[in-house]
């Protein structure tokens, strides 16, 4: 009988190997990978460390989980992590397609596949989910709840991002605190919570500073670093993430001082208007090399986050949790009325001085595809720029080959944008 594959152990071990390798090869880049150790290592070791492991979805405030000294495992982080390993991601996607339509977003297919296949060996102590970001997640979370059979807390995310919405979330987060108190047998430690909120604020301030660096022409930081912004969803409030952004900011500042840009000669400032292409991140490096085209900011990625205005105000902090949740990556654009998405797109185009717009559209994200024309028209109207619309699968590399993606982008860059490949 073959041994049960333990996915989390595998991810944790992989990070360890990667760190060992980096220590030897390029220790100056170690900081990019240490944060992943905080992520997967903490999850793998949660029970060993005497902490409760809680599976979470987007919009569950990590700060509150950390305040209770628990370890959050963002289910959606797994598919984005596995996207670069087709042999694993395809295993879970194919498994899930026995139960869910093949047109479901691959992120949620992998979520279903990992949980239902039994490869998530260590059972969590609880599951907390919200009704964001989309129909795909809403369809599967109750099924995951049934499958896990652990105490579950469900939060209804509001349709609109306004005070009524923040209040709606705030009230439910307070109920979530009661849930966590029952789970852990401890009352919320407000001192600890304040510490975590402080780290969270510091991190967000740094993230904003890093983003501001990217607004410079030329951009001092490489395209690739955008991927790790999504860690915010799971790890905001964790010292590991703070350290990561401290380092990133240092590197950015140093690059500026030394006149180093993401590329030797920045010709194009690109935005990707939908999901990150986790299944083929190398495309970003290739764009930099071939055209001097730097991915400056992605619309679904991190944008300016609200801060905890007053960690001592025990009412306000929950409203702030609501504000932050609704401003988090992907959520801010993908969920709710399209107008907010269009405003976000406008903001990115403007603040980051974008001159090449690409809608690199994950096919599973059907409702943002259903807004793609509005996005394209908005950009055309306001910035007199065309937008490349390209369908890809952000987590299933099999959908479109690297060659094909490169062909499409090359065609666009050369025929429409007028770019010439750098010799």
């Amino acid at each position, binding site marked *: 009988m073959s041994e049960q594959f333990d996915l989390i152990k595998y991810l944790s071990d992989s990070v360890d190997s990667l760190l060992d390798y980096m220590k030897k090869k390029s220790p100056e880049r170690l900081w990019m990978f240490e944060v992943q150790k905080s992520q997967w290592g903490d999850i793998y070791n949660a029970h060993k460390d005497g902490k409760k492991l809680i599976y979470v979805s987007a919009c569950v405030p990590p700060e509150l989980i950390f305040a209770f000294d628990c370890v959050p495992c963002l289910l959606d982080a797994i598919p984005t992590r596995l996207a670069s390993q087709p042999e694993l991601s395809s295993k879970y996607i194919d498994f899930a397609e026995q139960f869910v339509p093949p047109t479901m977003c691959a992120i949620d297919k992998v979520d279903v596949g990992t949980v239902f296949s039994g490869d998530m060996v260590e059972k969590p102590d609880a599951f907390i989910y919200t009704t964001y970001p989309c129909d795909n997640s*809403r369809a599967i979370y109750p099924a995951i709840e049934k499958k896990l059979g652990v105490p579950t807390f469900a939060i209804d995310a509001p349709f609109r991002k306004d005070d009524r919405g923040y209040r709606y979330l705030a009230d439910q987060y307070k109920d979530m605190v009661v849930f966590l108190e029952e789970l852990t047998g401890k009352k919320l430690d407000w001192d600890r919570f304040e510490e975590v909120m402080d780290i969270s604020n510091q991190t967000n301030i740094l993230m904003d500073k890093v983003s501001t660096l990217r607004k410079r022409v030329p951009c001092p930081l490489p395209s690739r670093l955008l991927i790790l912004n999504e860690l915010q969803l799971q790890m905001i409030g964790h010292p590991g993430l703070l350290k990561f952004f401290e380092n990133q900011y240092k590197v950015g500042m140093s690059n500026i001082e030394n006149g180093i840009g993401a590329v030797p000669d920045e010709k194009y400032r690109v935005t990707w208007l939908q999901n990150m292409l986790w299944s083929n991140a190398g495309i970003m490096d290739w764009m930099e090399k071939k055209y001097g085209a730097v991915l400056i900011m992605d619309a679904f990625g991190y944008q300016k986050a609200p801060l905890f205005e007053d960690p001592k105000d025990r009412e306000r902090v929950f409203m702030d949790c609501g504000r932050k949740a609704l401003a988090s990556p992907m959520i801010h654009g993908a969920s709710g009325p399209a107008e907010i998405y269009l405003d976000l797109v406008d903001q990115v185009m403007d603040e980051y001085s974008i001159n090449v717009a690409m809608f690199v559209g994950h096919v599973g994200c059907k409702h943002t595809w259903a807004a793609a024309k509005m996005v394209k028209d908005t950009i055309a109207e306001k910035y007199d720029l065309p937008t490349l619309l390209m369908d890809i699968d952000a987590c299933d590399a099999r959908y479109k080959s690297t060659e094909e993606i490169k062909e499409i982008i090359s065609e666009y860059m050369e025929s429409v944008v007028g770019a010439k490949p750098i010799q």
Partner: protein
Amino acid sequence: MDSLLMKSNIRNTSIEEWKQKGGKTIGTICCHVPGEIFHAAGLLPVRLRATGCTDDSEGEVWMSSFACSFARSCFELLLDGTYDFLDGIVSSDGCSMATRIYDNYKYYKKKEDSNKFYLKDIGAPRINNTKHALPYYISELNELKAGLENHFGVEITEEKLKKSIAVFNESRELVRELYELRKSDAPVITGADSLKITLASVSMPPEEFNAMLKKYLAELKTRKPLNDYRARLMLIGSAIDDPEYIKVIEDKGGLVVCDATCYGSRQLWEPVACEGEAIASIAKSYLDKTVCPRMSQVSTHNELYDMIIRMVKDFKVDGIVYAKMKNCQVWGSETLYFEDDLKAANIPLLVVEREEIMTNAGQLAIRAEAFIEMVEKEDN
């Protein structure tokens, strides 16, 4: 003057008459937009749908091929003039696609630069068993109420709301009677015609609908039973607004006796219990009773399953046809919840993929026929 069944057309004589009288019409998207509120404002609510749409290419330009064809087709009809009798659209976030019909149309309408057309979107909770859900939904409905009052210069009083609740409840009562008839061993109405009736209920003034359905039911009871069917089927799945779809199945001998679909049974079961304030009563009823897989909680999936089992028993169903709209995640994933349970309960299930515009009825027909051969009772 259209017959009751003909009122299932999006444009029918009732709509024309209403318009001629100077009446205003609002298109609603999804189940959580209560028709009662519009009715109390003296407006006619009609549920947006794509019945009869034959081409959604313009809709696809806006909504992309990744959107479900139901949403694309609805949008197509908004663009091609079919719905030009509307004075406004109100949507709830039934699913992301429903939201996008509204978003795209609002964007499209921008260029008209006129405030005459009323546009509003409301949020409806997806989890109804927290103490915050109902107040949230009530505040959304109150905002809608105020918006309608402001835009159309009307006052929506408690009294008017209560009257509207009574009228809509009567519709529900009558549709229940219709479905009761379908339980019979000697059914007198096809599933296709029943859908036409429930479509009519959201396409014409409810008072008129009630009067016509009363007459129709009286006549139905005198009809000779249908005897040329081979199996009794239940239809479940994404919104089915096309009686022709049901006809393809019934032409093969599979009589559709009941359903758990949006334009069929589900909307019209429980009446609105009016206890206390009208908006609060409406909100409570719509929040609790709408058993739609859009709700993201285990209890709703359990409720849906229980409802299906109950209907299988009450309507003596031989097999369930589960029509999954392509690209629909909301209904598309129910397999995850109940496929094993249905197998264990020995209830045959046929899963078919559906597009709003039926380009190949043959594909549905062969599956339906094979399924009917599989489930028909020996003594037929």
